[in-house]
């Protein structure tokens, strides 16, 4: 499967680049010379000439230092070739000899033959070892990838209290093994694709064959194969390329560092993409309800999880609407605030030189600047920024009379509320929408807030993630999925997979 796709994805380049798609020569040295010439003989390109035992047949091994497993090459490739004491291989021309080496000499499982130059180049550049043999028009590719990679660590962006602590790494094999270890199911599919015009990166489409809706798989693969770009640097490129609407601030594809979330999503009938070189893997399709779900919800007692989810919904609402609401009430509708609170707000605003909207804008922008600075700085200094920014500037601004204490409270509550969302990407959405609503509130008061809310709702009902309505299961109404919306029903009652995923196999449990 993989090799077919590899061939299909290799393109001829009309833009002046050399076309490497030609068959290998019988003379090993000429092939080696071409590769050296093609790659400009880099310092890390290792070439080793060997003789097959005492038969006098020359073999040349090519690979790139630092990308290979040296022990494997020494023990299982070079040694068997040097120590070969079998009969002389009778037909050095053609492929018979090289196939015998592959089948009888090398104690390795990941070996295959190739016959074209571009395949050899690709293999060498991706960390495999190429073996050319004098007189053979074929070469062997030995899977020898082995490079330094980060160990499995706890995910930084999605921490949980109860739940597994392993996170994805940058290495696609580690990542796929993390999924395979969780889903020991013969129906788990990990279809590999090589994506990219110049640099080809492996992308795995992960799904469970007898659960997922077949149209969905077709659609995801179709979109994936439209990608025409030099290199997909991380999963973000893929996400933005295959997303339904790039104008929408709402993410229509979820990214996660957590293998447990990834595996659970596959079981719900979703499709995952494992991308080489990034710890952030993609899950699709999603709906807005997924913004409020954390894998931890399923590990804890249902009552706790349901209440925490409710809390998240409320905080998302607060994070988006509170400043706008405050502006509307303080600028237009004093009457709606209970009189004693209205008095204290008014007295706190005594002497503040700006209208409420400017005051809010000042504070919110300061907060965003602090947040961004905190992310960029090294961790210990980041905390200092928090203290200096949050406490010192806030306090000083109030006592200098630039902002009112109520505004500081509003902004602080908003900021904290926006951190409760389990997904960082959705947290950003609340930040974007907040400013939009603040502007609307300053123009039209509560009416403006409602108009802004309507605009957001209109946008959401028209939005889709891979054909799944973004507001499902709320609208269209899918009552079965409400068991896992705000309420997280007890595990024994979650008998069905999400209806919005239109799975082939609907039952999660046997009756």
């Amino acid at each position, binding site marked *: 499967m993989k090799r077919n796709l590899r061939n299909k994805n290799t393109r001829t380049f009309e833009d002046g680049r050399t076309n490497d798609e030609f068959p290998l020569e019988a003379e090993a040295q000429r092939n080696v010379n071409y590769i050296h010439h093609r790659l400009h003989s880099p310092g890390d390109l290792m070439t080793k000439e060997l003789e097959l035992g005492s038969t006098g047949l020359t073999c040349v091994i090519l690979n790139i230092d630092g990308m290979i497993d040296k022990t494997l090459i020494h023990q299982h490739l070079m040694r068997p070739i040097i120590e070969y004491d079998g009969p002389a291989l009778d037909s050095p021309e053609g492929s018979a000899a090289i196939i015998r080496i592959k089948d009888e000499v090398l104690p390795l499982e990941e070996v295959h033959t190739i016959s074209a130059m571009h395949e050899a180049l690709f293999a060498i550049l991706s960390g495999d070892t190429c073996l050319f043999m004098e007189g053979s028009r074929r070469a062997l590719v030995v899977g020898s990838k082995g490079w330094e990679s980060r160990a499995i660590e706890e995910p930084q962006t999605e921490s949980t209290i109860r739940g597994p602590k392993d996170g994805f790494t940058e290495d696609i094999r580690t990542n796929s093994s993390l999924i395979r270890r969780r889903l020991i199911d013969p129906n788990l599919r990990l279809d590999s694709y090589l994506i990219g015009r110049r640099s080809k990166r492996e992308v795995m489409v992960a799904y469970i064959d007898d659960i997922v809706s077949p149209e*969905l798989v077709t659609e995801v693969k179709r979109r994936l194969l439209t990608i025409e770009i030099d290199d997909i640097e991380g999963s973000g490129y893929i996400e933005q390329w295959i997303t339904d609407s790039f104008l929408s601030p709402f993410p229509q594809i979820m990214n996660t560092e957590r293998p447990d979330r990834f595996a659970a999503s596959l079981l719900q009938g979703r499709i995952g993409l494992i991308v080489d070189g990034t710890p952030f893997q993609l899950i699709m399709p999603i709906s807005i309800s997924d913004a409020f779900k954390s894998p931890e919800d399923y590990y804890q007692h249902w009552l706790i999880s349901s209440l925490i989810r409710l809390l998240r919904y409320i905080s998302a609402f607060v994070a988006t609407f509170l400043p706008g609401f405050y502006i509307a009430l303080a600028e237009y509708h004093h009457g709606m605030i209970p009189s004693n609170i209205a008095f204290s707000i008014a007295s706190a605003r005594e002497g503040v030189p700006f209208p409420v909207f400017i005051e809010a804008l000042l504070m919110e922008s300061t907060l965003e600047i602090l947040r961004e600075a905190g992310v960029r700085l090294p961790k210990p200094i980041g905390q200092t920024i928090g203290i200096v920014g949050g406490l010192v500037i806030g306090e000083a601004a109030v006592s200098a009379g630039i902002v009112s204490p109520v505004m500081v409270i509003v902004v602080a509550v908003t900021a904290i509320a926006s951190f409760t969302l389990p997904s960082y990407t959705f947290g950003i959405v609340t930040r974007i929408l907040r400013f939009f609503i603040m502007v609307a509130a300053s123009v039209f008061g509560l*009416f403006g807030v*409602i108009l802004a809310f309507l605009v957001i709702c*209109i946008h959401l009902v028209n939005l889709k993630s891979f054909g799944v309505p973004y507001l499902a299961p709320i*609208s269209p*109404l899918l009552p079965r999925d409400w068991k896992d919306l705000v309420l997280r029903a007890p595990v024994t009652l979650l008998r069905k997979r999400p209806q919005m995923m*239109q799975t082939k196999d609907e039952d999660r449990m046997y009756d």
Partner: protein
Amino acid sequence: MANLRSWKYGDERIGGKETVFTITSLMIGVGILTLPRTVAKATNSSDGWMSILIAGGITLIMAWLVAKLSTRFRNRTFLEFVGDKAGKPVAMAVGLAFFLYFLSFTSYITRSVAELTKQYLFERTPVEVVSLGFLLVVIYAVSGSRVGLVRLTMLFLPFVLLVTGVFLLMSVNLFELKKLMPVLHSDWGSILNGVQESIFSFLGFEGVLFYVTLMRKPEEAPKLTLIGVMIAIVTYVSIYLFTIAVFSYEVTENIMYPTIELAREVTVPGDFFERLESLFLIFWLVSIFATTSIALDVSVQSVRCFTKLDKKKLLYVLAPILYLLSMYPQNIVQLSNLGKLVSYMGIVTALVIPLLIFLIVKLREVMARA
């Protein structure tokens, strides 16, 4: 199992619940805010609920007729159907009538919303600006997909009805049964006056003719339409009863927006929120918004038998007309005159046209058999 699925992958159709709420939403517009006043004034007694019930009954029959008609479309749109049965000119006339009605309906609501917000939310902001903001959002909604519009209604209306129910429940302690007494002492004349007034609030159900083509199961349209109309009847009757029982009919006659004033009377335990009527109005604005968008969508759909312009371009053309039309009335009196005019146009599209088409269809069937 497959036929039990209410939503299919990538499906752009609407199901039963969506249809029900679309119909209810089309009927419940700004009328609900003034209904208790107009009915109380017309009947001049506390028996207005009977008028509403009778009007509701008439609406049920008409809605059933309309929906029954719509089951015969077979993947054609309403106007294509009329064109096939009665000829192109008739279809064009019908399309024009629907277009004019729903367009002026949209402008009327837009202006009413502006007046409402002026009264309850802010006094200084000019109506022109408020209407413009509202209209722009409505146009944004209509320029999206039609299924999206229906789903929007599905999102809002149940919530708004729930909130209304909560408000009514909270005013239970102000409910005085004796204000509803004496029952059944009005004469038929005044009851019929009330019927005439309240039937205006039920108009709009004919919009279902334009949504049947989107339905997954068009054959269910009659049943669903009846449910939608019944939700509207229940809402109207309960709001009317509560308003009268809280204010008595003499007072209600003189309140501009009795339904909103009802919310003013409600107090939250602990007095945390004050002036709940603004909050209540805001919830209703959401529902009114859905009504307006669907109405504009119907009007856009019905004008499409005249022009091949796509929906977005059509909206660009219609938007200024809508805006100017909604700005035409100079004061509240003129606005309510416009409302009257719109209502009479509604009688034509909701009652006269469907009946005529129904007769034509029946007649042709009889003639075909003979």
